């Protein structure tokens, strides 16, 4: 029981502690971070905590966590395909494991185990390939078969019906789900406490560049002079980057999800199916959160479609036939910027002082802590940490695409 709670309980009249404060927009900041999601706020936090850089502004056009951070699958895992991908995401899992303590805010990281199902021989081979790479990189992940799958997830139909038989699954015990909003609020609080200015309802309308170097940012609340701008806007990455005259290898596509009414707990692991393009987990409040792969066509619209609901319902019942009476309460959509090789694009760009933290597709939230940490180090030291070297923008020109593309099906 935290002291804060006890104090609040006994003297009701003392006003509760404010988590982040609103400030006037200063004329000048050392660093301006565009995007008040988990990535932007984490970077601000690590700049302040690990590098003593506190003259930082985080600009969010709406409320913090309004973009991808508030709409994602809430899944955390590190069982990726390539060694560089596994190393990167495993660092994130390690930070998540102690983040509640570090931020003094319970982010409810529930490491309950993550199953990726395989329905064809090809699927089983891809899972085995990932299991082997994971084990070599020291990540707990192995191939399991229907009998073990059944006792981890009794409601899953492991019979051999013709269309989508479950042949095997990649079992990743440290994977799980997290209260994604709590990560945003935790980082925001700890950044605010260290002097970072979080500006909500402040939209960036232009970026000033002189002789190839960033000099300032135009916003709906006035102009800011700065030499360093980080673009952490995920789905809107291309629209911000076009302000400095650069194109990115990204296509923005909606990713939809939905939630059911609360049910007594019966699903204790996260279940993902590549070929059925579906993921499903049960929150601590008892709701099932479900989603699929990205939409069939690119768009910035977050309206959501009926086609998604029909598709996800059919595929979830294919895996869990006893859920036909469970009711959907709400559907929503976020937007994901998809790169050609399903890997992030981080670090320097041809415009000096304009840095990017983009290309996060459907796998961005789970990387928030490590992305924030490494980009803070990059800003503070001017050098690209080795961990994120493979994700440089120049890789496309150098024909050094990351191998995650080999896993073909978009993982969650």
């Amino acid at each position: 029981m935290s002291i804060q709670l006890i104090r609040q309980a006994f003297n009701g009249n003392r006003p509760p502690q404010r988590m982040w404060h609103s400030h006037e927009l200063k004329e000048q900041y050392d660093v301006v971070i565009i995007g008040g999601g988990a990535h932007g706020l984490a970077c601000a936090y690590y700049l302040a905590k690990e590098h003593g850089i506190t003259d930082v502004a985080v600009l969010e056009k709406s409320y913090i966590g309004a973009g991808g951070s508030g709409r994602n699958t809430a899944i955390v895992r590190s069982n990726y395909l390539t060694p560089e991908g596994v190393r990167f995401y495993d660092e994130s899992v390690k930070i998540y494991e102690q983040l509640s303590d570090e931020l003094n805010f319970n982010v409810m990281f529930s490491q309950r185990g993550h199953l990726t199902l395989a329905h064809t021989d090809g699927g089983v081979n891809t899972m085995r390939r990932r299991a082997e790479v994971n084990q070599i990189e020291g990540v707990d992940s192995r191939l399991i078969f229907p009998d073990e799958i059944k006792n981890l997830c009794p409601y899953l139909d492991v019979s051999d019906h013709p269309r989508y038989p479950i042949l095997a699954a990649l079992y990743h015990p440290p994977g799980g789900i997290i209260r994604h909003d709590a990560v945003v609020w935790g980082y925001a609080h700890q950044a605010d406490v260290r002097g970072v200015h979080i500006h909500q309802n402040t939209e960036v309308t232009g970026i000033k560049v002189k002789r190839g170097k960033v000099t300032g940012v135009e916003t709906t609340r006035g102009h800011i002079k700065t030499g360093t701008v980080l673009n952490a806007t995920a789905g809107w990455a291309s629209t911000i980057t076009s302000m400095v005259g650069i194109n990115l290898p990204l296509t923005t596509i909606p990713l939809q999800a939905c939630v059911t009414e609360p049910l007594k707990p019966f699903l204790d692991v996260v279940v993902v199916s590549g070929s059925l393009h579906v993921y499903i987990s049960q929150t601590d409040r008892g709701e099932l959160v479900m989603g699929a792969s990205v939409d069939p066509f690119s768009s910035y619209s977050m309206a959501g479609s009926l086609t998604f609901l029909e598709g996800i319902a059919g595929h979830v019942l294919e895996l869990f036939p006893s859920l036909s009476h469970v009711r959907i309460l709400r559907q929503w959509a976020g937007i994901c910027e998809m790169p050609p090789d399903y890997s992030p694009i981080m670090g320097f760009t041809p415009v000096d002082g304009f840095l990017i933290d983009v290309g996060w597709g459907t796998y961005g939230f789970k990387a928030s802590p490590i992305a924030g940490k490494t980009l803070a180090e990059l800003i503070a030291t001017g050098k690209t940490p080795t961990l994120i070297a493979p994700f440089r923008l120049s890789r496309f020109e150098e024909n050094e695409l990351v191998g995650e593309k080999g896993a073909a099906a978009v993982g969650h």
Partner: protein
Amino acid sequence: MRTEQDALTTTSNRLHPKQGEVIDRSTTIRFTFDGVEYTAHPGDTVASALTAAGVKVLSRSFKYHRPRGLLCCSGHCPNCLVQIGDEPNVRACTRPVEPGMEVRAQNVWPSLNRDLLSLTQLGSRFMPVGFYYKTFIRPQKLWPLYEHTLRHAAGLGEVDIDTPLGEFDKQYLHTDVVIVGGGPAGISAALSAAETGAQVLLFEENPALGGHLRFTVPLESSSTTKASKDLPELLEAVDRQPNITVFTDTSVLGWYQDNWLCAVKGARLFKIRTKSVVVATGAYETPLIFDNNDLPGVMLGSAVQRLVHLFGVLPGGQVVIVTANEDGWDVAADLQSLGVNVAAIVDEREPSACASPYREGLTNAGVPVFYRHTILEALGSNEVRGAKIARLDGQGEISLATAQSLQCDLIVTSMGWTPATELAYMAGGKSEYHEDRAEILPVSTPPGIYVVGRAAGTHAVNSQISEAQRAGSNAAAFVGFGEFDESTAYSSGVLEPRRTSERVCVPGKKKQFVCYCEDVTDEDVETAIAEGYDSIELLKRYSTISMGPCQGAMCSMNTIHLCARANDWTVQETGTTTARPPTTPVTLGALAGQNMEPVQTTPIHQWHLDHGADMMVAGLWLRPNHYGDPAAEATSVRERVGLIDVSPLGKLQLTGPGVPELLERIYTNQWDNLRVGRVRYGVMCNDEGVVLNDGVCAHVNDETWYMTTTSTGATTIFEWLQWWLQSGWGEGIHLTDLTDTYSAFNLAGPQSRTVLEKLTERNLANKAFPYMRLRSAKIAGVSCRLLRIGFTGELSYEVHCPSGYALHVWEALMDAGREFDIAPFGVEAQRILRLEKAHIIVGQDTDAMSDPLSANMAWAVKLDKPDFLGKPSLMRISAEGPKQLLVGFKMVEPNVVPDEGLQIVESEADGQLKIVGWITSSRFSPTLEEAIGLCWLPPDIASQNGASFTIRMDGHLAEARVHHGAFYDPDGERLRM
């Protein structure tokens, strides 16, 4: 165990029969609630039957497990959620009773009436809003234990693992105008739209049309007078109008782009394309916030009227009505006329502000009226025993000194309405806060979308009807039927008197619930905002207010007012949260509908099943994996002859003079000199140089080519070629998909020629029909195309026959081969045979990163061609050298078969393993009696035949050696026999 006898003799709340009730009193049916048997009449809902039997507590609240009873009685609040059989979270107030129904309370322990989990309220001081973010932080190790207890206290209904899948289906509907909501406004809009000749669909979520007219009493000189006698006329007019189709018991769940609507009725989902929409969905009555406002016995005015008039059930004998509008007086008059003891009418307004036509009648009847008063607290622990009220001073502040308690068993609140306008906002409608009415009303909607009736803030029935008639004809005019009525194109409900309470909540010590689903109190809202979660969206995510089963129907208005007050913003500045489908919860079964998962089978599918084939899934196809013993099947091909059904192979016909140039551009090898009758293998890449597909292409006659692709790639390659043809390279070329027109069987093995010769007159000698040639021939009387190609590495003929003759030709081949002990073989045997020849499978040995130069197909890449898809990228790879190569390997220990997907590693100084490649294919070769395979390796190792490397297998390193070329018949002599 209360028997059926008890239920009847206790104070039954059933009124004597009334006009307009929906129950059939002549019949009695039985059901159980938590094991106790109750009776009901057909037409009763679970809630009305239980209320008739005096049951008040129906559920326990989500967080504090407080007792909860009926509140809205219209399926919008969470208070009556029950489990019925294997169906969780059923709204008892809208679910008709069926004989033998087993109803159970949810999330209670040990029982509904004695739920020990309600003890959590004792610690509620330590459980403010967002408490779980502030607790269980350290030690991290204990979080899983805390989480376990939290999870098992959460959740409402249960999912039974044996619940059957159920029968569901869907129907598309196409119409000109959709009217959502069958109240007076909806019906009037439907009639005026239909009169113009437009086709109209009218959706009503209740079992009958009429809306609030079904349960508001037709007393003279009341706002409903004019309408009361209209309802029968309206219903009769609807029956007579052929252009209107009515759907009752049907909820419209969502509006999607381009007027695409979704509705659900029982087990059927409707998907509706309409051209215009009239939203006449009425409004939710807004609950009032005061101490213990969630106590069973506190109900909304409309809920009491539904119970009384539809089901003849009286939820209480002594009632206090708390109101700020005329609707409260309607309810009072209604109940008083039924002989109910109206203990008091507590009206927030000054006497002068009250214009209710029943005022005089009620005061003359001695009903005590407390003007300028409001309620402070509902008294009682498990049900209402009384109400504490107090005076409001000039500024609307409460003077606690004037508090007094009134004895009653029912508190009815009529404190205003929240328009149910979600559909209009999904469609792009904008809302605006009307200061004088204290209501958020739609102010603009996109063309073709109209909002009428209570959803637009119009409560007077005659204005509802006239406004709706105009909207109906405008909706039809928008589609092209009749003229626009410009008088007031858009209704504004502002002419109506104010119906909403001026204050949001009252100072009080006990719990005052803003959100019933999530047990969020007014204090929680203030605390959350003070902590910084001030925007309406942050407040919602942090406090989880409006995220429960009612999705904001009961709490959105109060939340917005509290949020505005705590932030010192105007209501308009505070804004609303996004309206999202579904408007009412919908089951996964209804959304999935009839199971339609396309499956493709070959014409001789039945033959395979009859001969013991083990089938496998390949894309949409089902194919024989093997017939019992794949190794034996492979050996029969090597030694004698075998037959495999390869019908799923993609087969494309290209005709026209422009084909050679196209083939040059899409394949990586040379194509412009392929003579008629010849077949060539080709590899297709995209412009990144990644291998898309491979297969053969035959030159059938001077202007016809016949191309095959992998089965999983058939559709993608067909679309890929169509794009190039239609975006500039299609001059003089036609493309036709013949995948299903021809079935294809591969007769392979040294005896294949002898077998085939028994069925055709064509000369099959090597000179007449050499390797890599195409011939047409009659096989068993059927004209077929024969391709002499060899994926298996043996002498073989691919017989392409018209699909109608498939079984005839297949059986003829099997009969002809019987004397040579011919065996059918499946995909598994084919994989062994092709691997023995080191033939790659696109998609298994290659992935979305592999180029042909790295994938051991350099021989098929002619970089001297002027241009072809992928050439620039392949030029670069060729210049820089591939980073990895696909190459064959053998194991040092011959009978150790490494699983496909294992990694090839080098151990570094520090003992760490470095990944340098991986195994794509591996089998035990029955022909060579040793393990063989294909893998990716760094070029320096791959280029040296016999070079050794290690594979990480079950925790140890197994040694293997590079093997160049085919493992079996490297020179391909057997192919050319």
